[in-house]
């Protein structure tokens, strides 16, 4: 699933991040989420959502060709990954994280954030 966002609908509640970390890593730990919310307060009172739009930059920089595209989604093959972290550094949206095992992790398109967002600020494209 490819995500799209409407930042003007976001209320900054962060439930997308809580469910993301639970779905992908089985932890209550939003710092592990694969999308980010930033509030711009007190002025002008807006939110920005950093998310993976499956742009493929991570695949382009991966010398091991460990990241490949299937049906518009880019996924990491951990058998090929050498933990060089080039994908983490190159992600234009800074939404590839390093997990507890020391490997990069990116949005898998699971869609949990779209199901739970009460305001449809994050949805399937």
């Amino acid at each position, binding site marked *: 699933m490819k995500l799209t966002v409407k930042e*003007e609908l976001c*209320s*900054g*509640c*962060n*439930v997308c991040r*809580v*469910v993301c*970390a*639970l*779905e992908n890593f*089985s*932890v*209550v*730990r*939003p*710092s*592990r989420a694969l999308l980010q919310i*930033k*509030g711009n*307060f*007190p*002025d*002008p*009172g*807006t*939110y920005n959502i950093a998310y993976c739009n499956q742009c493929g930059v991570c695949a382009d920089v991966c010398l091991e060709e460990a990241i490949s595209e299937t049906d518009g989604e880019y996924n990491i093959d951990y058998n090929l990954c050498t933990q060089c972290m080039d994908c983490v550094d190159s992600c234009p949206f800074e939404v590839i994280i390093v997990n507890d095992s020391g490997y990069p992790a990116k949005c898998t398109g699971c869609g*949990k954030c779209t*199901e*739970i967002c*009460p*305001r449809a600020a994050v949805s399937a494209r």
Partner: protein
Amino acid sequence: MIMLNGYAGKNLKINVSSGECRVENTAPELAEKYLGGRGFVARLLYDGLEPGTDPLGEKNMVVVATGPLSGHLLPGSGKTHFGSLSPATGGYGDSNLGGHFGPALKYAGYDYMVIEGAAPKLSAIVIDNDQIRIVEYEELQGKGAIEAEKELKARLGEDYQIITIGPAGENKVVFSCISHDFGRQAGRCGIAAVMGSKNIKAVAVRGTKSIPVYNPAGAQKKGEEMYRVCFSKPGFKTWTPYGTASLTDWANEVGVFPTRNFQSSYAEFHKQINGQAIRDRLLVTEKGCFCCPTPCGKYGYAKTSVGNAYVEGPEYESIATLGGSCCLETIEEVAYANYVCDQLGLDTISAGVVASFALECFEKGVISANDVGKGISFGSLEDVVYLFEKIASRDGIGAVLAEGVRHAAGVFGQHSDHYAIQVKGLEWSGYECRNAPGMMLSYMTADVGAHHNRSWALGFDISQSDADVSALISAGTSGELPLSSPEGKVDHVISMQHSRPLFDALGICRLQTMEIGFETAHYEDVYELITGRKLSWPEMLEISERIWHLTRQFNAKHIDGFGRSADFPPRRLMEDPVTTGPNKGRFLKREILDKLLSEYYEKRGWDQNGIPTAETLERFGLEKV
């Protein structure tokens, strides 16, 4: 160490005099008997404070506590509870806020923190997971609470969650508030003044760890289900657009909207300051607390003749006390007064009631232009802002008003205590009760003073039904309001005094249940999946009742001569008929309230002076208090 699933597992005690920080395991027995949040606050304050403690002295404590459900995947899991010996009442003080601070504290590894002592210079406590620092920030002296948060975010990083106090807290105004997330406040009981007395301007937390869960997959599944249930409730669509401000029209229709310092319970101009006015004239964005599907927070921009400002809210309570009680007749004026309170760090509830008290005192000639520094009148934003600035800086008459209406009435004399609208020293929040005996009893017996969050019996008073608020608002009223009877109200008040504060102990927002109509059985399920401990809702209510007896006993321990006389409202509400609106001419005589209190004490298992009996304390495992 016993794994406390659902909890962070540790707690933090910081003595800001010595700089000593102690990290200890959260005691399983404390979690078992008091759950968390308000329960932790009550027990820690009871055990930690000796009688005779000065609320603004080094020995008072600021307790910041989360609950077992805080920070987890369920609707409204972002509540944080604060507590101290209150400088407003001299008794038990607590207050809570939404936003994101409590979850961050848990992700940093702490269920609660206790701040003791007094820092030599104005400082902030900075917690970055296991690293704890006390950092001097003298340059923040006098800065607005929102301004200080902005500066600290710029210095420390956007991923810090921060609580701050404004100049009112630094100057120990007894109704100063703790501010967070550019618009959420723990407003009541003056806990910010206690922070100010400790020279603590702010606490900043960055938490990136996980919270242990008994059954992560099950808890996730249940959490997702709870969101779906919430989405299906009518209140999800009808409540969310207006949030708490949706109460404004209803409160006027049923005549409970405090107006002109509680002379009336109806404001003719209420359509100018309601939820629709916020949407039409202020709204910039919806602003939700952590994991909240129904954000009350309406972040807006207000333009007035006095000034322009970004501001969160106004929430219903601020509309009632600033709009109703001070008679500010446009939503822009209410919002701007709200903004001034937020920057100065004043609780909008108490500040509105204190200002309207001063306005009436001036109108009646109790205080003069010479006393105030100028002539003042109801309905003037300029005058209300003038009073707030005087109070926050303790300048001139502000030094008297900074101690609250009970104290100010004592200074002003001339029977002004008749209309100093407070109980136990805490100013009354936004519901006028002269046709609402259950709600009146709720205010009279709330442990912190005249605050509505312990029991909101108003809907039951008006409609004689247990409908959630969303349904009450939708139903509205038609025809003449019947006279509300005191019969059968005591049981309802007692029941609400257990159910509403239970949410504060669990660390979650009650509005999902109280306003949206969310079923409590969901909390039993999710609590078990998160903690691994089976606890029915009635068993949780029993814990809430234990906390209720403990806070009553706290007041008996700390307030000289505490008892029945502390449980009465000001004479205006027992003697003066409502001047206008649906309840015009009505009031509740002292004899009626006296009778209600007697019944209440008996049903509570307290003596007729309102002190818990030894048998009652023993029944709840409180024999040692």
